[in-house]
């Protein structure tokens, strides 16, 4: 197994405030790593660092085995084409229609056949359960959940090897989150995608994650399968996993039999 992301003794500081201190994490190809942690614990920050949007104060990150921030523009461009990111607030291009948003990465990669682009965009829309007529709306005309789904469609349209999802199911109704989980799971199985996801939603976590990393106290507090994590005795983990709703979600997972 090769590791897709290696985080090595990473520290992050905003002003006087340390968000991460000496954090280590390794994500293997083909796994679905869920990152959980309290609000403000630095999950989004960590995702941004993984893909080179933010330089850590200390430490190093290797993506697909290559170090970030080497200053080699060509290498960075190639790296950036291998992953897709779903931002917490969508980050759709507000001046483009939904269609253009999803087509954008394809055009960037040099697909010129307009018919093919059209078919692919429609496919991506149907994968995230949007209707073809939604393609002509502007981002400001979408509901919160629709923005999430368009953003996912855009992240998928690059056919990335690595998918980073920042709270993908926040703002979706339960039905949609379930089909989202199904979609990611089937993509993961077919394409061998590596997925890193941040979530507060236990159903999503239970349905998708092959490993869980708990981010607390400025470091990775615990790492392992859900069952491993639940053995760890720590106030945050107890609260996160061990109340009623958690038990319900995990039971339904057991009955479904996650692959």
């Amino acid at each position, binding site marked *: 197994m090769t590791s897709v992301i290696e985080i090595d003794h990473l520290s992050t500081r905003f002003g006087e405030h340390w968000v991460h201190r000496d954090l280590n994490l390794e994500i293997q190809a083909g796994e679905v790593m869920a990152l959980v942690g309290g609000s403000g614990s630095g999950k989004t920050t960590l995702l941004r660092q993984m893909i080179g949007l933010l330089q850590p104060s200390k430490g190093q990150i290797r993506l697909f085995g290559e170090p970030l921030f080497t200053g080699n523009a060509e290498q960075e461009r190639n790296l950036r084409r291998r992953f897709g990111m779903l931002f917490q607030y969508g980050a759709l291009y507000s001046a483009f229609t939904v269609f253009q948003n999803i087509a954008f990465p394809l055009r960037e*990669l*040099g697909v010129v056949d307009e018919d093919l682009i059209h*078919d692919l965009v429609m*496919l991506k*829309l149907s*994968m995230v359960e949007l209707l073809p007529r939604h393609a002509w709306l502007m981002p400001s005309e979408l509901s919160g959940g629709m923005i999430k789904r368009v953003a996912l469609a855009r992240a998928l349209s690059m056919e990335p090897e690595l998918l980073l999802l920042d709270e993908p199911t926040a703002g979706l109704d339960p039905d949609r989150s379930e089909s989202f989980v199904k979609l990611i799971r089937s993509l993961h199985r*077919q*394409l061998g995608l590596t997925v890193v996801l941040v979530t507060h939603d236990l159903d999503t976590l239970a349905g998708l994650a092959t490993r869980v990393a708990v981010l607390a106290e400025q470091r990775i507090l615990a790492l392992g399968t859900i069952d491993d994590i639940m053995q760890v005795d720590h106030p945050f983990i107890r609260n996160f996993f061990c109340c009623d709703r958690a038990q319900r979600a995990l039971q339904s997972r057991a009955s479904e039999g996650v692959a």
Partner: protein
Amino acid sequence: MSGASLALDTDAEGRRWLRLSGTWRLMALAPQFEALAGELDRQAAQPGIGWDLQGIESLDSVGAMLLWRVWQRRYPEILQLPDRLEPVFERLYAAGKTPEAGPEAPRPYEWVATVGRLAIGLWRHVSDFVALIGQLVLDIAHLARVPGEIPWRETSANLYKSGVRAMPVTALVGFLIGIVLSYLSALQLKNFGADIFIVNILGMGIIRELGPVLVAVLVAGRSGSALTAQLGVMRVTEEIDALATMGVSRSLRLIFPKVAALAVAMPLLVLWTSAIALMGGMVSAQFQLDISYGYFIDTLPKVVPVANLYIASLKGVAFGMLVALVACHFGLRVRPNTESLSSNTTASVVSSITVVILVDALFAIATRSIGMPI
């Protein structure tokens, strides 16, 4: 990662098979897309050809879509599809089932509609602008009755931002313009031996015309664009809606302070800039024509009637209010996307400069018999 490849062979029963193998994914396909599509099309045209997809290592939806289109959106008759790839095609099949409505096709006589839309757009601009002024008048009436609600803090903040902070740049520009104007006039006046009229020219020109217009243009570019962008972003981020839900009147809290601040700041800036421009002119006149500072300062009030100062201040008030109103008008029209933000900011600056110059012409007509030297 190996690229996508295909090979032809014939099996024992004499059937011809097209065997696909390798990685059929966007990154691998992108460089050889056209060639591959052409080749597949050619093969698909042959009757009775079999498709063997068992050698494909991984297939994403771009690769699948490529094949699906070659197959004309249905499974070919003879196909060997491994189970693991089936769901990929199932998604394509499902996507094809939802009926599609493209963007509206252009209708005949579209230009009639375009002209109509333009006219309506223009009408909206005018009516919105009038409504904005009306709302401002209502606000002023309201504040006159309830002086406790005057937004002093916002007004003073705006006064500082668009007035005090504009002083260095207006002074610099004014000084340079004064020098240039004085220099060019001096060259001509020397020919006629009319040196001492430099005071008249600079005095009337700068105080009555140039000062107000120059400041208005600078402020439109500096504060007008900033006001539009600020209001525009507040609309994009729904801050204006948030204010409204807290029962804060947007016109009272956002627009009135800006208009009031510029109405106060602008005449002061006009006086300040004109004074500095005259100083520039004075320096240049001393160099070029040997006109002493004392003479210049002494003569100025005699050749420029004081009414001109009043006209200049009045222009300042009018231009300031116009720049602020135009900026707010365009700021409130911003729709929540970046394109609209940038086009409205541009439109705001261009329109306010145009409006200022138009109104300046009106002033010139209305005040043609006032303040002229005898």
